[in-house]
């Protein structure tokens, strides 16, 4: 492993989907994106710009049509085993209790039952779900299910964490609580994070760097903005600071045109 290699690098990645009737759709064209070790990077862009496609490429769930993907300096072949993935929609196994969902990854790796359960309880406590281990997902609220999913991913201690609008389905208060919680967990054990969102405020308040994607089709990064806000941050309070507002208007200015383009496409 090269010491200076980025944790995750997408180099000139192009993704073209071919539909069964022969139609071609290029979701992403020649996108280059790097995440350094321990860095929190957010990708923002208008809806339908291929944000999730980029994340699926990084996870190894999709193969790029062109370009290359490198994980910790090594080319990615198949699934990205160094990564954890927090999905936008429900990804918990509904037939497993919260605890059994958290232990799933350990179980797949052959960790003993007792040890896995002990570690799961530790993680459930860490995400604020102590005593909820025996509940099934349908008995938990949306926010609690996200916490279980977070514990399920983080218990495996992945080098890279991929997040696809994980909090978009939550109400604003729960969402800010979860964001603070995520920052807390992240600063305790700094991993590389690639965070996808359509919410610019969320992106700025969480990240070290924000990447703006152009409108689809054939979207690609059109701007990179380092976020020099001090840490630790409180996502609710930091939104009121002058520097935040300054950065926000800067990025919004760059995004606006793309958002309008994306709206215009949806109207046609």
């Amino acid at each position: 492993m090269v010491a200076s290699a980025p944790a995750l690098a997408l180099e000139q990645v192009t993704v073209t989907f071919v539909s069964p009737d022969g139609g071609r759709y290029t979701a992403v064209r020649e996108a280059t994106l790097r995440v350094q070790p321990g860095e929190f990077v957010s990708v923002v862009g208008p809806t339908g710009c291929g944000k999730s496609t980029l994340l699926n490429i990084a996870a190894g769930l999709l193969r790029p049509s062109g370009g290359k993907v490198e994980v910790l300096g090594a080319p990615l072949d198949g699934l990205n085993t160094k990564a954890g993935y927090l999905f936008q929609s429900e990804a918990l196994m509904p037939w497993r209790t919260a605890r059994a969902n958290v232990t799933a990854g350990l179980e797949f790796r052959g960790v003993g039952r007792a040890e896995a359960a002990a570690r799961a309880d530790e993680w459930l406590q860490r995400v604020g779900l102590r005593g909820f281990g025996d509940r099934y997902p349908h008995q938990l609220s949306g926010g609690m299910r996200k916490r279980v999913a977070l514990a399920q991913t983080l218990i495996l201690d992945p080098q890279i964490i991929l997040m696809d609008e994980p909090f978009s389905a939550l109400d604003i208060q729960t969402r800010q609580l979860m964001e603070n919680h995520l920052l807390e967990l992240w600063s305790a054990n700094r991993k590389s994070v690639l965070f996808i969102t359509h919410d610019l405020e969320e992106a700025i308040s969480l990240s070290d760097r924000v990447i703006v994607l152009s409108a689809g089709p054939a979207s690609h990064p059109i701007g990179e903005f380092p976020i020099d806000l001090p840490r630790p941050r409180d996502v609710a309070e930091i939104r009121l600071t002058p520097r935040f507002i300054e950065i926000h208007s800067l990025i919004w200015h760059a995004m606006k045109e793309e958002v309008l383009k994306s709206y215009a496409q949806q109207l046609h």
Partner: protein
Amino acid sequence: MPSSSTKLLRVWQLLLFVAFMVVWYVATSPTLLPPIYFDDPHKAAFFFGEPVKVFERTWDWFASGTIYAHLWVTLLETLLAFIIGTGFGLGMGLWLALSPTASALFDPYIKALNSMPRVILAPIFAVWFGLDIGSKVALGVTLVFFIVFFNVYQGVREVSYTVVANARILGASDRQLLRHVYVPSAMSWVFASLHNSVGLAFVGAVVGEYLGSSRGVGYLILQAEGTFDINAVFAGILVLTVFALLLDWAVTVAERRLLVWQPRGGETEKI
């Protein structure tokens, strides 16, 4: 605690039963009413049986213990048909759902076999497997198989893409994916059809016995018909009905224990 309205409902249900029995008793008794429809006062009892005699016969069967061997055979056939049919249905369902090639290849044959009235296979099974329990189990299996098969097929197809992707990212191998994602998802559909498949396993056993056997409750009914013993026929039907209700109740209990992870109607507990 049953509320007063459910208690009242139970009383009415009981009254309905009593009323039915009284009408049956009075209408078939050779002495209580003058013959209205039949020219002979004993003819009504000949065609429709007499409730008291039906219960007497049923009581005799249980008191003398002759029924137990027959019930046991019918139960054994039902259980075997259910287990084997479910096993095959699960295996085939998983295989075809996960292999598009196999699915495309077998599709017309599965459809044809499912459309066929499979009870008609009973005589063939009797030739192949003899008059013992083998032929009854085979008939039950053909009935149970398709229910389970289609449910498993649907269940695997409907697994959320995200759940599968998540399990793979968490490190599940293909075998672990099958065991921890596809099978549990399919099982929820199998359980949803449990009442149906147990019921049909029972139908397979009884119809098989009825068409030719030497043991079982279906055989008892067949024997009674052969001697025009209508009371015994009704007694057999009564035993079968009670037995089917018990089976159904057992399924409900099993379902409650095994599907705890599924939200039930009216359950609002959320924190």
